[in-house]
C-alpha cells in the first residue's frame, strides 16, 4: 500500500458561533415547551369518551340518508354554502383590486403611504377571523346568509390583497413604457399593458380563495350566518350522529369537487 497523504485541513471558522446559536435555539424552544405544557389542564379521558367515539363512528358509517332530500336539508344547505362563497369571493375580488395596487411596492414612488400603509391595512383585515366578522355583520343585517356573504367578502380582502400586490409587483414594465412612448393616456396604459398582465394571476388567486371560502362558508352557520353549518351544529348539540355523518360527507364531497374544478381551471389559466 502506498503512503497515505498526510495533510491537515483547518477546522472551518465560525463554528463556535454556530454551535452557540444552536444551543440558544434549543434553550429557547425548551423554555417555550416547558411553559406550554405546564399550562395544560389535566388530561383525563372520561368514561363516556369511548362510547361517544363509537357512536360518532357508527353515525358516520351509517349516515342519515333521509336528510339529503329533506326540505332545508343537506342539498339545500350545501347550495346555500356554495352561494355564500361564490358571492363572497366575487365581492372580495372586486374590492381587492384597488388594495392590490395600493400595497404593491414600486420602484418610483414606494413609501409609507403607497406601500407600507396598504400592507398594514391588509394585515389588519386578515387578523379578523371570518367567524368574528360574521358575528358583527349579523348584528348589522340580521342572521342569515347575507351576513356570511359580507363576512367572507371582507375577510378575503386581507389574503387576496397580499397575493394581488405580489402579482402587480411582478409585471414586466416593457409594455407600459412602450405605450407611454406612443402617447397613450393613463387609462389606456392600464387597460392595454397592466391589466392583461395581472388578470390571469388575479383570476387564479381568486379561484384559490374561492376554494378556501367554501370551507369557511361551511362553518359560518355555527354562529347563524347561513349555509350547512346551522343544521350541523343542531345535529352536534342534539348528538344526532347519523345526521352529523351525512353532513360531514356532504361537506367533504362539496369541498373536494370544488377543489378539483377550481384546480383544473387554475391550471388552464396560468
Amino acid at each position, binding site marked *: 500500500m502506498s503512503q497515505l497523504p498526510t495533510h491537515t485541513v483547518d477546522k472551518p471558522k465560525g463554528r463556535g458561533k454556530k454551535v452557540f446559536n444552536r444551543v440558544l435555539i434549543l434553550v429557547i424552544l425548551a423554555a417555550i415547551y416547558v411553559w*406550554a405544557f405546564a*399550562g*395544560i389542564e389535566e*388530561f383525563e379521558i372520561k368514561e363516556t369518551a369511548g362510547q361517544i367515539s363509537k357512536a360518532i363512528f357508527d353515525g358516520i358509517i351509517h349516515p342519515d340518508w333521509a336528510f339529503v332530500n329533506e326540505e332545508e336539508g343537506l342539498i339545500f344547505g350545501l347550495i346555500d354554502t356554495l352561494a355564500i362563497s361564490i358571492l363572497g369571493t366575487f365581492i372580495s375580488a372586486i374590492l381587492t383590486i384597488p388594495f392590490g395596487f395600493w400595497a404593491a411596492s414600486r420602484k418610483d414612488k414606494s413609501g409609507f403611504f403607497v406601500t407600507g400603509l396598504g400592507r398594514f391595512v391588509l394585515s389588519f383585515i386578515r387578523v379578523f377571523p371570518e367567524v368574528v366578522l360574521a358575528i358583527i355583520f349579523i348584528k*348589522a343585517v340580521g342572521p342569515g346568509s347575507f351576513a356570511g*356573504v359580507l363576512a367572507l367578502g371582507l375577510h378575503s380582502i386581507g389574503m387576496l390583497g397580499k397575493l394581488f400586490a405580489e402579482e402587480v409587483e411582478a409585471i414586466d414594465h416593457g409594455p407600459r413604457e412602450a405605450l407611454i412612448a406612443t402617447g397613450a393616456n393613463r387609462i389606456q396604459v392600464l387597460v392595454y399593458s397592466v391589466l392583461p398582465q395581472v388578470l390571469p394571476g388575479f383570476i387564479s388567486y381568486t379561484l384559490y380563495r374561492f376554494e378556501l371560502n367554501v370551507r369557511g362558508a361551511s362553518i359560518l352557520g355555527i354562529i347563524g350566518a347561513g349555509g350547512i353549518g346551522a343544521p350541523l351544529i343542531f345535529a352536534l348539540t342534539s348528538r344526532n350522529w347519523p345526521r352529523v355523518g351525512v353532513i360531514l360527507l356532504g*361537506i*367533504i364531497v362539496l369541498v373536494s369537487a370544488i377543489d378539483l374544478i377550481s384546480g383544473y381551471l387554475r391550471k388552464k389559466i396560468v
Partner: protein
Amino acid sequence: MSQPPKKTIPKPPTRIKHYLTAAIVLVLLALSYIQTGSSFMDLITNRDQMASLVIDMFPPDWAYFEKIIEPMLETIRMAVIGTTFGAIISVPVILLCANNVNRIPWISYPARFVLNLIRTVPELLLAAIFVAIFGLGMIPGIFALTIFSVGIIAKLTYESVEGIDKGPMEAMTAVGANKVQWITFAIIPQAAAYFVSYVLYTFEVNIRAAAILGLVGAGGIGLYYDSNLGFLNYPRVNTLIIATLAVVLIIDFVSNKLREKLL
C-alpha cells in the same frame, strides 16, 4: 425586404369563449344573490346600525385586559402544542406521500387521498366533534389543531420533498445505504429547512384558528368573544379584538423573520 407586406389584416381571435365564461359567471352570481337572500339595500338602510355598533366599541374596556391575559396565553399554548404534535405526526405521513421516497404507488396514492380528506374538514368542525368526545376545555382544541396541522404541514412538505435534488439520493443508494440511512442523509438535510418553514407558517395559521375554537367550547379566547357579544358588551369585544390583533401581528412578524432566515 424580400417579401411584400401582406395586405390582409388577420382576423381577431374569436371571443365567444370569453363571452360564454362571463355569462356563466353572471348567472352563477345572480343565482347566488337570490339563494342567499342578499340585499345591498339592507346594508345601506342599516348603515346607522353598523355605525352605532362601531361607535359603541369605543373606548375599549382597558381594565378587561388583565382578565383576558390568561385565556390569551391559553390560546397560544394550544397553538404551540397543536402545531408540535401535528409536525411530529406529519413526518411519517410526508415519507409515505412523497413519491420519490415511497416508490409504491398503492401506498402513496391512498395516503394522499386521506391527507386531502383531512384538509376538507374545517377546524371548527373538528373541534366541535372533539368537544363532544372529551368535554369542554383545551384538550379538544389541541386535538383539532393537531389534525388540522397535519393537513397543512404534510401537504406542503411532501410537495417540496418531491422537488428535491436527486443526486444525494442516488449517491446514498450507490454506497449501499439502507432505507433509514438513505432518508437520514439524502432526504432530511434537503427537506429540513422547508419543513421548519412550513411548521412556522402553520403555527401562524393555528394562532388565528385557536382564537375562534372557543366558540364551540374548545378553550382559548374564542369563548370570551362569544359571551361578550352575547351580552352586547362591545367595549370588551373591542379589547379582545385589539389583544388578538397584537398577538397575531407579533407572532406573524417573528415567524416571518425566522422563515426569511431559513430559506
